[in-house]
């Protein structure tokens, strides 16, 4: 059972705002959809790139997923569904995937999408794509007709389509002439409902409605990353406002209509404001604490167990998420397909300093510094690190914080030395499912540096098992293993608060702000 922590008046406020949001969403729309108008969306950082294939950054995805589309993408139930493809035919041996393309789909440059564009785009992804493991099983990409592309796999991969549909660094389809260009040098041309107008770094990215957008009539409405999309707005501007306070003020004054993320205390305050709607995504991400298993003291299992026993997850999560969290031991969200039930529950949120001290003694720990790597860019990381450090100091661990910026932290954690622990919020991986999650913990560069052979074996078993039931069983073993060797500790689940002006209609919170099927009331 997930423990949803609510305390004091805070809880009532959040509850009220959630109710408000769900009423706003669930009620039949009071006004009919109207075309026209412009929306400004605020987000906190620049997109590192608008070349969707080459980056797995959320700041990029927020924007690019309104511009580009993929062959397959996840629907609302996190199952792969066709977007630019009409269907896929998998051969009996599981080695060939023939994608039928939708016909008459126009790029923003006016040209029709054909198999040549798809082949060129996927070839490019193999070279510059940020999640290259996605196409790793593919040996051949062939245009087998003007509207058909066939992928040949070197071996059977039951989870291939799930991986291929991943939005992490999406395998978007761009015109063949753009696909010949190196990373970050393309013109931003896609097939999506909005087309790119301009990007002024540190200021904004502007999109406008693509009048010739080819909606997918096979669906009734938008569905996950795909479905039938309709752009109502004339323009959408993504403004970069790094200061959360400034962004909120801009929303309150009406300069900005949608906030991609809003601080929880502010959401509480604004829940009583009639001009503002609050949206909640819960669970949105998993906050984790990762050990460097190649360096002392994190190379010692007893030490890692001591840390696990010392942690008061509730305190860490309450502070790091400003009160918007749930405690659940499972590595897949409660009630989701792969939820492994009680496995590992007894080792989660122990908060037993005496046990931790005893384990430290067993580990022969003698006050070596334990350097926690974190960054100031993502507030949850830095705050969690501060609270963890205080808790570890309390049981006698010489914890020090090494706070850098995000790129520096990313570099340091790739080294075998120079860090002992690392706070990381995983947003997309737990959403995508077990394979995406476990792939970051196995292979050439697992998050905790040293491979766990047992886990590596289980991962191979996971991705080569055909049935969902079989994979569920394997994942339960994986969860058990994760709690046994304690290379990574799940701290808890956090949510994402978003907010819009009250006249923004049709917005449904999702993994990125979908600006299609959104319209302005009274426009």
């Amino acid at each position, binding site marked *: 059972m997930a423990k949803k922590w609510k305390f004091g008046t805070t809880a009532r406020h959040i509850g009220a705002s959630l109710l408000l949001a769900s009423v706003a969403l669930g009620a039949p729309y009071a006004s009919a959809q109207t075309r026209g108008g412009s929306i400004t969306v605020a987000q906190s950082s620049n997109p*590192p790139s608008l070349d969707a294939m080459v980056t797995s950054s959320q700041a990029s995805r927020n924007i690019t997923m309104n511009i580009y589309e993929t062959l397959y993408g996840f629907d609302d139930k996190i199952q792969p569904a066709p977007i630019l493809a009409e269907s896929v035919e998998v051969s009996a041996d599981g080695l060939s995937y023939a994608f039928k393309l939708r016909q008459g789909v126009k790029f923003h440059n006016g040209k029709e999408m054909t198999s040549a564009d798809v082949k060129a785009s996927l070839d490019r992804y193999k070279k510059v794509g940020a*999640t290259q493991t996605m196409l790793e099983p593919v040996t051949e990409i062939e245009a087998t007709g003007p509207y058909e592309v066939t992928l040949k796999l070197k071996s059977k991969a039951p989870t291939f389509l799930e991986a291929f549909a991943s939005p992490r660094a999406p395998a978007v389809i761009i015109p063949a002439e753009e696909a010949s260009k190196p990373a970050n040098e393309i013109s931003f041309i896609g097939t999506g409902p909005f087309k790119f107008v301009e990007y002024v770094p*540190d200021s904004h990215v502007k999109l406008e409605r693509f009048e010739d957008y080819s909606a997918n009539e096979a669906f009734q409405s938008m569905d996950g990353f795909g479905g039938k999309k309709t752009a109502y707005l004339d323009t959408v501007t993504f*403004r970069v406002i790094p200061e959360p306070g400034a962004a909120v003020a*801009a929303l309150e*004054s009406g300069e900005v209509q949608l906030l991609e993320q809003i601080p929880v205390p502010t959401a509480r305050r604004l829940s009583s404001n009639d001009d503002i709607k609050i949206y909640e995504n819960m669970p949105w991400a998993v906050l984790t604490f990762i050990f460097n298993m190649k360096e002392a003291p994190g190379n010692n299992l007893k030490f890692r167990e001591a840390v696990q026993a010392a942690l008061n997850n509730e305190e860490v999560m309450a502070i790091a998420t400003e009160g918007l969290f749930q405690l659940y031991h499972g590595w897949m969200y409660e009630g989701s397909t792969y939820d492994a039930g009680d496995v590992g529950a007894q080792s989660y949120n122990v908060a037993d300093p005496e046990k931790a001290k005893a384990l430290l003694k067993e580990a022969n720990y003698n006050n070596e510094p334990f350097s926690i790597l974190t960054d100031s860019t993502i507030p949850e990381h830095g705050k969690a690190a501060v609270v963890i450090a205080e808790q570890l100091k309390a049981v006698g661990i010489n914890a020090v914080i090494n706070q850098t910026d995000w790129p520096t932290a*990313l*570099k340091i954690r790739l080294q075998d030395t120079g860090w002992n622990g690392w706070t990381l919020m995983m947003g997309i991986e737990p959403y995508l499912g077990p394979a995406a999650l476990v792939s970051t913990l196995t292979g050439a*560069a697992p998050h905790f540096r040293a491979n766990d052979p047992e886990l590596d074996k289980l991962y191979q078993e996971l991705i080569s098992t055909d049935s969902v039931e079989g994979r569920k069983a394997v994942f339960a073993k994986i969860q058990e293993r994760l709690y046994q060797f304690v290379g990574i500790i799940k701290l808890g689940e956090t949510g994402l608060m978003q907010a819009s002006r009250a006249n923004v209609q049709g917005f449904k919170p999702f993994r990125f702000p979908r600006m299609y099927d959104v319209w302005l009331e009274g426009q």
Partner: protein
Amino acid sequence: MTRFIAGRLISALPVLFVVSLVSFLLIAVVPGDVTAEIAGADSTEAQRQLIREQLGLDRPLPEQAVRWYANLLQGDLGQSYLLNRPVTEAVFERLPVTLSLAGIALVLAVAIGMLLGILAAVRHNSWVDQGSMSVALLGLSVPDFWLGLIFITVFAVGLGWFPTGGYVPIAESFTGWVVSMTLPALALAFTQVGVVARMTRSSMLDVLGQDFIRTARAKGMRGYTVILKHALLNAMVPVVTVVGVMTGVLLGGAVVIESVFSLPGVGRLIIGAIQRRDYPIIQGGLLITAAIFVFVNILVDLAYGWLDPRVRHGR
């Protein structure tokens, strides 16, 4: 005069050389990895190595330096890693924001500062004097970015008179530009109001005490005519000298103010580049900002020489 100008320009060369050297060396020791940001957190070491080679980051430092200087002499500051465009283009595109911010702040600081200074000098030792000087001192003591945050809280969020941030180009809307610049420029200017006010006050007092003013007053010229005709002109000369130093402080302060008010200026470009390890932007941004500062100082010297011929001939 020509010799004076030429002399000032030549003396700027070694300064610019030191500036460029410091810019280069500074960045050479910066830890961190730009490739992680470009390729994403989950990229493999091989992918990063490829990017490193493409960008020339794997070359030894002297080689990078030689290449940098060779390009610099041709006016080429290299290519930004992350923006995919020439550094000069990226920096110059943002200069209008930073220059208008610093420029407006300068004008405000001089205008308000001189007004306070004159009032204080004319009503010497009165409450006006003390009040003006207190404001001036407060300006010197309050952190400008904190003042910016207070301004946002009060005037943008509380009263809703101004936007909380963002930049409107002057070409798009003049009123929009003025409105978007008011709070940041005021926050930035406030620190320098004190400098100007104190300077003006003391030189005004100096001038007011001199014989020709006393004579003018004795001859029956009315107070304000005296102030405007004689005292003000003479009091302006020392103010001009601080304009150079102030420009530096304001350009530097703009870095923080831009980040508080989300203005897309050079300062934010540089701060962002530091965080993203975009070496060429950091180098180019520092260099161009410093060069502008040096250039402004030359202009100030020339203006001073023009106002006060003794300086020109003394050198």
